[in-house]
Structure formats: structure tokens, C-alpha cells
């Protein structure tokens, strides 16, 4: 019972890591990134390649995360430029199709180059017992990292000048530009940051169980659902929604079976879009 809850929270935090990137890119760039899960897989693959070169697990993971971030920056500076030329609905549509295309390009390349790939990171200690409950160290570690990253993100958005600038762009892009904020540079920074968080989620998946090249679409879809349920402009909403959906998913797949659980999850997301398009925690628009 408590083990399921714990599993759900671990998975939920990981989903939140993915989803928060989607939220940030959507809020700041007005692009719904359909290649986000592929960023995660890319990060994981790079980490695995470094591992294969004999690099120690920690720098390899950091390298993978950095590689995902670099990919994000490159994508923002090249592929998404045509989308940024438009505003509003037109930009959303173009961004959606471009990132969908990108997701296929990344999936196709990775599946072709590394057909039987899987990343598994081993932790020295298999499980620890805290307060009488056995917990897997891997899950504990990924959760801790995720919580730290979220804390850092909140602090960054709340207290630094750049964070304030980012929030102002999310509120109103034109207004922020009039105040002397350069949306393009901030956007590149955020896409890079979001891609790094996706890379972290990918590496964490390798730590928690194992990561394969075919998991990109699944990551994207789950991240998208969490981002939508959390309200695509709200970072705290995304965190809450991720943990919530993670727990629901863990319980549902344990008691009713994976297919029905996923259907319940999807229906919940659909209902949220229809009833509260602005997300669970958002207060009006």
C-alpha cells in the first residue's frame, strides 16, 4: 500500500520534471513542444554513450543532461525560428507541427542508430528501510533530485531578476518587451533549461528502471497530460498535477490493470481540459 504510494510519488515527480519543461516553453515561447519526451531520451542516450566510454556514472549523467540542454538551445535557435515569426494561434499550430516533425526525426534517428539500446544505471545500495518501510534507493534518489530541482526552480523564478523577467513574459510578451526584456534570448535560455530538466528525467528513468529509445512518445504524452491538467501556464499546478497523476496511475495500474488505468488517466485529462481549460490550480485567465 505505502510502497505503491511511494512508487506513485516517485513517478509523479519524474512526470513533473518533464511537464514543467513543457509548461515553461509553452508559457514563454507559445509553442507546445511535442518533442519533449525525445529530449529526455536523447539525454539518456548521451549519458549511456559516455558511460560506455568509461566515464563515471555521475559525470556521465551530467553530460547527458547538458547534451539535452544543448539540443534544446539548438532547436530553439534553428527549427523554431519560423514559428516565432508568428503570434498566437498561428505560432502554436506551426510550433506543434514542427516539434511533432522533430520528435519523429529524433525517434527515427535514435531507433535506427541504437536499435537495442537501454540505459540502466546502478546504485550501490539496493534498498534502505526508513521508518520501517523498505524503499528503493534509486527511487529515493530520483525523488530527492527532483525535489531539489523544483526548489531551485521556484527560488529562481521568484527571487532572481531573470526569473522575474521570465514570469513577466509569461504574463504578457509585448508588455515585457516594452520594459526592455529581450524575449528571444530569455526564450532560448528557458528552452535550454527545460530540455535539461527533460534530460534529467530521462537519466532518472535509467536510474529507476531502464530507458529505451522507444520511450520518447510515451514521455511526451504523459508530460503533455500532466502539463495540461496542471494548467499549461502554471509551474506549481504542474508539480501538483504530476504527483497526483503519478499516484492515481500507480494505484489504478496496481488494482485495475495498466490499460484501464491509462484510459482513466486520459479521461481525467480530457475532462480537465473541458471543464477547466486553464488548469487545476490556475485562477482565471
Amino acid at each position, binding site marked *: 500500500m505505502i510502497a505503491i504510494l511511494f512508487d506513485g510519488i516517485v513517478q509523479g515527480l519524474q512526470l513533473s520534471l518533464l511537464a514543467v519543461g513543457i509548461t515553461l516553453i509553452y508559457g514563454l515561447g507559445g509553442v507546445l513542444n511535442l518533442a519533449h519526451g525525445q529530449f529526455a531520451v536523447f539525454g539518456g542516450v548521451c549519458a549511456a554513450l559516455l558511460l560506455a566510454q568509461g566515464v563515471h556514472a555521475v559525470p556521465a549523467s551530467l553530460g547527458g543532461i547538458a547534451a539535452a540542454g544543448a539540443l534544446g538551445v539548438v532547436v530553439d535557435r534553428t527549427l523554431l525560428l519560423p514559428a516565432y515569426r508568428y503570434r498566437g494561434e498561428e505560432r502554436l499550430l506551426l510550433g*506543434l507541427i514542427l516539434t511533432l516533425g522533430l520528435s*519523429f526525426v529524433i525517434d*527515427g534517428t535514435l531507433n*535506427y542508430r541504437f536499435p537495442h539500446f537501454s540505459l540502466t544505471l546502478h546504485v550501490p545500495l539496493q534498498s534502505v528501510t526508513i521508518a520501517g518501510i523498505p524503499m528503493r534507493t534509486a527511487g529515493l534518489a530520483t525523488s530527492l533530485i527532483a525535489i531539489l530541482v523544483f526548489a531551485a526552480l521556484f527560488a529562481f523564478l521568484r527571487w532572481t531578476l531573470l526569473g522575474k523577467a521570465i514570469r513577466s513574459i509569461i504574463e504578457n510578451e509585448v508588455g515585457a518587451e516594452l520594459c526592455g526584456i529581450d524575449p528571444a534570448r530569455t526564450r532560448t535560455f528557458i528552452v535550454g533549461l527545460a530540455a535539461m530538466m527533460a534530460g534529467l528525467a530521462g537519466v532518472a528513468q535509467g536510474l529507476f528502471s531502464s530507458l529505451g529509445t522507444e520511450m520518447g512518445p510515451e514521455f511526451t504524452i504523459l508530460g503533455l497530460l500532466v502539463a495540461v491538467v496542471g494548467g499549461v501556464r502554471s509551474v506549481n499546478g504542474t508539480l501538483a498535477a504530476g504527483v497526483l497523476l503519478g499516484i492515481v496511475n500507480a494505484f489504478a495500474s496496481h488494482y485495475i490493470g495498466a490499460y484501464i488505468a491509462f484510459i482513466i488517466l*486520459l479521461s481525467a485529462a480530457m475532462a480537465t481540459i473541458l471543464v477547466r*481549460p486553464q488548469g487545476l490550480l490556475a485562477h482565471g485567465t
Partner: protein
Amino acid sequence: MSARDALARYADLAVVAFGLALVPLFAGDSPYYLRIATLALVYMAWTVAFNLIFGHTKQLFLCLGALAGSAAYVSVVLAKELQLSPWVTIPIGAGAATLLGALFSYVSVLRGLGVIFLGIVTLAFSLIFHNAVLGLRQLTNGETGLVTRGLGFALLEQPKPGYYVFLVLLMLSLVAYCVLMSSRTGMAFRALSDDELTAELAGIDVTWHKVLAAAVGSGILGLVGAFYAFYNGIVSPSVFSFVGVDIPVLIALLLGGMRTRLGPVLGAAAFALIEELVRPFGQLNVLVYGILLIVLFTAFREGLVAMLRKVFRGSGPRRDRA
């Protein structure tokens, strides 16, 4: 409208029908090429439907495979479980798809969902469909799928008659499309694809027209999907997957040109050709889809029809714009 007017108006359709009717002669007796040609017809009809939904009324349905698949599964399962004739169950399946499409459209207009949110809702439906098929194992036989051969549709099980059945379906879809577009409804579609608010102010019932386009489009998707299930000999989730239906149709529509009459036909034909070229490379087809999507959407948004029109206008005598 006099007979000559009608002839002039539908001359291009007649040419297409004639040209496509000749294809089996060139394919000779090779069942392989005939199958590819038949598949191309299926995708052409689906692209015509998507043109109506996305091209004309800007509703991003990312559940084309799921709609066609719902119709296919409904008709196959009914035919199997209740021993009904496919002639009865196919219309039921197509009707189910029509209702689903109309429902999505109506709900999205009612809730004021933009392009993106409708896209996500329909994408979620795609996944629900996929998981439901896998989950309802006793009815659908899960990943393996159901064998549809011998369920009473002998006509579709021979290569050549099968081809002509789909040709008839495609022409029916095209005629339905042309009739819609040349009526007041078509005017309304054009108006609301330019600017919905202005169209609404001009007295056009935007909700009704969007739901109509979605319903007709989904009906075509479902009808062709159900026939395809019986032609294919097997119906499985992979036949109607997102990558297998939605992406090719989206690419074909962009390739041919949105909001054109023959764009979907040209686009789907071109796509069939491209797919045949990359087939030897196996897994790489996904990569090619991605590159096509990106290139088409950034550099080639008008599509083949507009390009051909430019070429012909440049060389031939100048005609006034109709």
C-alpha cells in the same frame, strides 16, 4: 445548372476517376503493386476527409486513425459476434465515427477550445482508443487483431474488384466534397476559415458548419476505414495507429495542398510514392516523416496543386482568376 456546366465543373474529377481506373491495367497481375495502389486510394479518401476537417474549418483532429479504427472495429466485431452482414455493420461503424467526430467538434466549439486544445483532446482520444482495443481483449483479440476474411465480404477479398470498390468510395467522397463546397455551405466554410468572428457577425452559424464539416469528414474516415478493415484481411491496433494513419494523412494533405479539390489525391499519391522509396530502409521511414513534416510546413505550405498552377500559369496563356 445545365448539363454542360456540370460537365465543366466536374471535368477534373472525371479525369481523375478515369486515370485511376486505368491503374490496375498498368499494375498488371502483380498483387503487390495493386495492393499499394489500393492503399493509396484509401489514404486519398482519408485525406479528402481531413481536408474538410482541418483545411476548411481549422479543426485539428489528431484522432483520424482512431476514428477510422473505431468504425472498423465496430463493424468487424458486430459482424463477428452477431453474424451480421458487413453491408449492415459497415454503415453502423461509419455512423459511430460520424457521431464521435461531431461530438468532438461540438464540444470543442461549445467550450471554445482553440486548435491546440482540440488537438490534445483528440490525441487523448487516439490513445484511449488504442488502450481500449488492447484492454478489451475478449472482443478485439488485443495486439494480434481479428481476422476479417470470410465474414461475408467476398468482393473485397479479390485484388481487382477490391481496388474498384475503393475507387468508387474515393469518388463518392470527392463528389460529396465538391457538392458541399459548391453550395452555400462551401461559402460558409471559406468565410469561417478566413475569420470566424467575422463570419459569425455576417450571420453564418459557425457552430453548425464546423460540426457539419467534422461529421462529414469523420463519416468518410469511418466508412473507408471499415471497408479497409474487410479488405485488409485483418484488423489490429497497428493498422489504425497514430503513426500509421494520422501522420501520413497530415503529410499528404500538406504535400498536395490544403483547401484544394485535388490536392488530397495528388498528395496521397506522392506520399505513397515516397513511402515506397524509403521502404527498403525499414525503421528510417519515421525519420523521413519527420523531415517531410518540417520541410513542408516551413517551406512548402501551399502544396503541389498551387505549385502546378504556378507552373502552368507561367508557361501557358494567362487566364483570369476564377
